[in-house]
């Protein structure tokens, strides 16, 4: 296995709902290396999103340890986490989560704004990222002037514009028709072949088939973790 980016051990996430306790994760141990392509699967409520949020430093575990590129994330404060998210992680959401008032270009620029990059450089990087996802001709469009597939491409451009260590996608094709979904999956495949680390959550076996490794969760535990026998060759 290549050099690990993510090393988690005995990760537990407990939610308290009044008197009731919900264990979304009950001791997950997992290592993911550089340039892996992982699909997280499992029934609804099995803890996929919870695990993704944890991996993406959006949430902190109740117990257990999380080393991100060797650094202990558990004892970082909000601003340190924000910086890791900004520099190292690219998110792609099921519902795209673009800012409605901003153009495609401005949306893609946003992470670079928070990285403190100068305007010229931002424009250049964002333009490149949009070209990579095939939207060079839609840069000045607002999200409501774009199709679902195009919106998700903008979101992917936004995720990769900072050249992050990993790209995390929680059901990225969940709101798209299957044809558009396939286009998006082809794009993730290209990113992976280009050297990126990609982790995505999906319900669909068709989608998971693109990944090199499939991890299945059930009731907050890893049920299986295997190499995808159907994976297309790199």
């Amino acid at each position, binding site marked *: 296995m290549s050099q690990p980016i993510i090393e988690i051990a005995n990760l537990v996430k407990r939610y308290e709902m009044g008197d009731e306790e919900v264990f979304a994760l009950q001791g997950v141990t997992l290592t993911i290396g550089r340039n892996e392509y992982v699909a997280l699967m499992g029934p609804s409520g099995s803890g996929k999103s919870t695990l993704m*949020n944890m991996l*993406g430093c*959006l*949430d902190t575990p109740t117990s257990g340890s999380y080393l991100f590129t060797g650094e202990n994330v558990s004892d970082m404060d*909000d*601003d340190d986490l*924000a*910086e890791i*998210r*900004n*520099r190292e992680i690219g*998110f792609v*959401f099921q519902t795209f*989560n*673009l*800012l409605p*008032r*901003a153009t495609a270009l*401005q949306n893609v*620029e*946003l*992470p670079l*704004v*928070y*990285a403190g990059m100068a*305007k010229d450089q931002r424009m250049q990087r964002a333009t490149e990222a949009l070209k990579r996802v095939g939207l060079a001709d839609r840069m000045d469009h607002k999200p409501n002037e774009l199709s679902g597939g195009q919106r998700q491409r903008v979101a992917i451009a*936004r995720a990769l514009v900072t050249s992050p260590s990993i790209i995390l996608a929680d059901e990225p094709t969940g709101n798209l028709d299957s044809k558009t979904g396939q286009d998006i999956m082809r794009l993730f495949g290209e990113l992976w072949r280009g050297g990126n680390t990609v982790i995505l959550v999906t319900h669909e076996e068709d989608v998971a088939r693109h990944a090199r490794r499939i991890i299945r969760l059930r009731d907050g535990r890893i049920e299986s973790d295997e190499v995808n026998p159907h994976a297309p060759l790199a």
Partner: protein
Amino acid sequence: MNALESISIAIDAVRSQKLRSSLTLLSIGIGVFAIIASTSIMNTLQQAVNGQLADLGENSILIQRTPTINFGTNWAKMRKRKNITYAQAQQFRDRMTTTQLISISNESPAYTIKAGLESTNPDVSLIGIDDQYFAVNAIAIGEGRSFIESEVILNRRAAVIGTDVVKALFGQGSALGKTITIKNQEFDVIGILESRGGVLGQSQDNRVLIPITVFNRYYTSEWDASVDISVKAESKLTLESTFDEAVGVMRALRSVKPWDENNFEIDTNDAITGQFSGFSSALLIVAWISGLGALVAAGIGIMNMMLVSVRERTREIGVRKALGARKRWIVRQFLIESITLCQLGGLTGMIGGLGSSWAVTEILRGTMPSLSYVMPWGTVVFSIVICTVIGIGFGLYPAWRAATLDPIEALRYE
């Protein structure tokens, strides 16, 4: 991009919540309006008072039918007062014993002075004076001379003119010995006033002095025929006794019953200053307290608007945090927004305040043509600062709420 974006979001917020935001902005506007208008109007009145004080010399007493500036006294009562006629003033002068320095004058605003083809703006003060005028008032001849007693008595058509008038009619040339025309009457220029520049933007040099006898004949109308009497005490020590004597003589001449109030105004230099500062500080305190009160109320409205804005944009905040926005970026964004809201309101109040104080100045200029509008720069800057402070003060809590939202919960917010 980020600051501009926040500003445009603030403007959008105003548009999308018209009623609530216009009430909030109006309230800021009222606060700024009260502060700017009151300060600015006081500046103008101060100018008028200073103009009068500039003429009135040391240890001097001024007697008039009504005060130049009315500090809230009853106008109806004032209007009923009889004029101080020239004859009455002369009697007064003759009866006074504690001092001989008494001058009778009358001023009428807004004359156009001509010489040949040249003419001034119609805003020159025309003042009728006697031979004592320069001895009593704090005003001096620069070139030439003033009138002698016989010239006043014999209605001599002669004039002493201010340097502004000289400049307007004769440019760089000499004015002494030339002839000027005021409403079809010709006057020889026999003296030039020493230039005094402006007091708070009001020029002291834009005036023409002629013998009061001539003035009374051609340039007074019923309503402004009342003359002013300036009395200079021999020294500071005798000021009080001279003042008392003047009151006594005037009351006798105007047949005031012992139990009635004076039916004329009599003031010393200090008294006028005192009256004015008492009046103006009272008005300023009231205006500023209500202005600041309105601003604080508006601040609470701003806070409410910002909390709504934060709630409506919870998801957006979640996205920004997921993309790596630190707390201070989010705080900054919402503070810019609330400051923008405050400045929008402040701007309307400022325009209203400046406009109405300008209008008040214009109205006062009807009776005091030498008044000019003084832009209250200090107060304008103060209003911008206070709007910023309120934007920050009341925007901080909503901004902090936004910055400390949990990213996951914010992203999940419907």
